[in-house]
């Protein structure tokens, strides 16, 4: 059989398979996953949004710019690969304790305890510990509401 005839013969089922596979792989599969994901894990599926009261104040997984001295601050964005690294190392967090303590009058011990309560990334002997910046700051705001109310009442605006 000549190559030209072979190609012509193959083309019709090939076009059909291309269209069918596009519908199955490109539409049906992601839509099915979206449906199940929205039912089973709605919070994660929408981007792990963090709330303070009823207002959305960020995503736990995406770094935001904390510039005020009474908050833990994220890494400089140019240092990470994603530019939105939401975590910092324990050492980084501990090195910020003195600054936060003098800005808020919360004791260093209390701040260090707070850090230790929110360590992630380790499992038994595996992994390296880190802390999530937004988780820490939210914990600060919620544990010391009156302090932060005085520092900046706008934090609690609804």
């Amino acid at each position, binding site marked *: 059989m000549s190559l030209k005839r072979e190609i012509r013969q193959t083309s019709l089922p090939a076009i059909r398979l291309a269209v069918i596979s596009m519908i199955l792989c490109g539409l049906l599969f992601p839509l099915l996953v979206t449906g199940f994901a929205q039912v089973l894990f709605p919070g994660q599926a929408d*981007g792990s949004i963090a709330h303070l009261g009823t207002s959305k104040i960020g995503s736990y997984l995406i770094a935001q710019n904390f510039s005020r001295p009474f908050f833990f601050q994220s890494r400089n964005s140019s240092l990470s690969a994603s530019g939105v690294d939401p975590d910092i190392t324990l050492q980084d967090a501990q090195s910020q304790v003195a600054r936060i303590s003098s800005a808020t009058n919360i004791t260093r011990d209390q701040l260090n305890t707070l850090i230790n309560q929110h360590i992630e990334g380790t*499992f038994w002997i595996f992994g390296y510990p880190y802390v999530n910046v937004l988780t820490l700051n939210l914990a600060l705001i919620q544990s010391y509401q009156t302090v932060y109310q005085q520092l900046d009442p706008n934090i609690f605006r609804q």
Partner: protein
Amino acid sequence: MIQPADFLTIILILSSAILAARLLTPHIVKIFTYAPSRLDRFLDPIEKGIYRLLGVDPSHGMGWREYFLSAVIINIFQMALAFIVFVFQGGLPLNPQGFPGLGLDLAFMQVISFATNTNLQHYNGEGVCTQLPNCSTLSTNSAGQPIPGLSYLSQMTAVQFLQFTSAATGICVAAALIRGFVAGSKDMGNFYTDFVRSLTRLLFPLCFVAALIFVGLGVPQTLDGYQILHTVEGSTQTVLVGPVASLVSIMQLGTNGGGFFGANSAYPFQNPNPASDVFQIFLMLLIPTSLCFVYGHMLGKRKEARPILWGAYALFAIDLLIAFIPNYSLGPGMEVRFGGFFTSFWTVVTTAVTTGSVNSSLFGNHPLVILSAFMGMLIQSTPGGKGVGVMYMVMYIIITVFIVGLMSGRTPEYLGMKISARDVKLVMIAFLVHPVIILVPTVLAYATGAASAIGVCVNCPAASTGFTQIFYEFTSAAANNGSDFLGATGNTPFFNISAGLVMFLGRFLPIGVLLALAGSMINRKRTSEIGLKTDSVTFTIVLVGSILLLVVLTFFPFLALGPILEFFQKRVNGF
């Protein structure tokens, strides 16, 4: 040097991947021997419906030519469909960000990139928008070209679609190749049947479960547009979401590697924590490893899988050794949640199975880690990409059998079949495709000034870094790997068109040649008397030695100008 706990982590991940791959093997064998399975009751009617729609006879056995031709033609039509989506995404639905369509040269390069299982990306999934959340105007790269983003429809019906089909194509051609070597085979199987069954019975079920696990771990899966939020400090933040988890599942399981976001699996929404990182590494290894077992099972000689599997993992261990010589610690270009350890480990795995996804910026990696990445991509079977890893291993085995035959002065034979001069010519063509399509365009990029046009310095102390970038681009393209230094910087007509051609040839030329080889094995006379035991430890060692020799001899001058020179320069000047 590596910490004991980290060493144990590697051993645990690799052994669980090998174990899971072994458990998956009988299922994959059933798919390609068309054997009855418990899934038949549910899937038979669906598959029969698809065959009827296609108008094909699923039991028609194809020769290698027909099989190969069907694979190529179907792939070309699939690329054409995705091309249309890319170019016209601006006017199509599911585009909440309002991204404009891709340029023709970029769309050309990208469809080849996804259809060949390469997944080099000269765009940023989320675009680099000047006015979020509306992305109709885009920033430009250093060559003045816009950095485009993709609509959700493009991510689904172009990227995910081709990621599924390229993975399925890879598995199918590997199955066809194996059939050629199976004693008593009459044909290479039917491409349509193989393709449909590998989707319905393998990729869809595994990816569905994996995608939901990823969502549980924090990967978004939504069709809503980007979220605009107000932070506690009073500024606004745009959170980039989308149908990410469904893409991540196939990009890793299918060893594709092309991510939803520009930063790939370094972006927290694509890879939120060490657990998701380990799961992605596991998924990458699963099917390539399983196909090594499948080879032995389908041949009916399980021991013949040994040199392929253990050869692959021995080479992989060498890659790991090189990568973990330097101290690894959290550095610039890395993410805190992965640290130095998971970053280096990922880079080795992703190139060893030619996935090409990254969880760091490659600029942050030590030159020895990059050297190890090169080894993975140049060898291509450690254990290599979906399907093609096994094919390349068979190619190396035949070369080794030939070399051993020459040394001992006997006619080379494999599985009791005499290896003819034509066979050796074919495997040499398949082997030589690779260096030609890597080295020629690398030289061209410098000769035509295309390298300096994108800001790669040619006459400066850091020239070795620039050379590594260009050499890496074409190595990654030819190996259908897709990990990538250039990213959106590479969105220039030269790199789009050259990389597109390299990927296409790097994919289909070796596949065609190796299928021709396997096709000629059908009905070949077999003797029961075994001259050379190819399932022994000795043979595996010789195999690993010849692979290293071949690859090092072919590429050493180029490696020396790139990562090796960089290593010594940094040793002198400090890292």
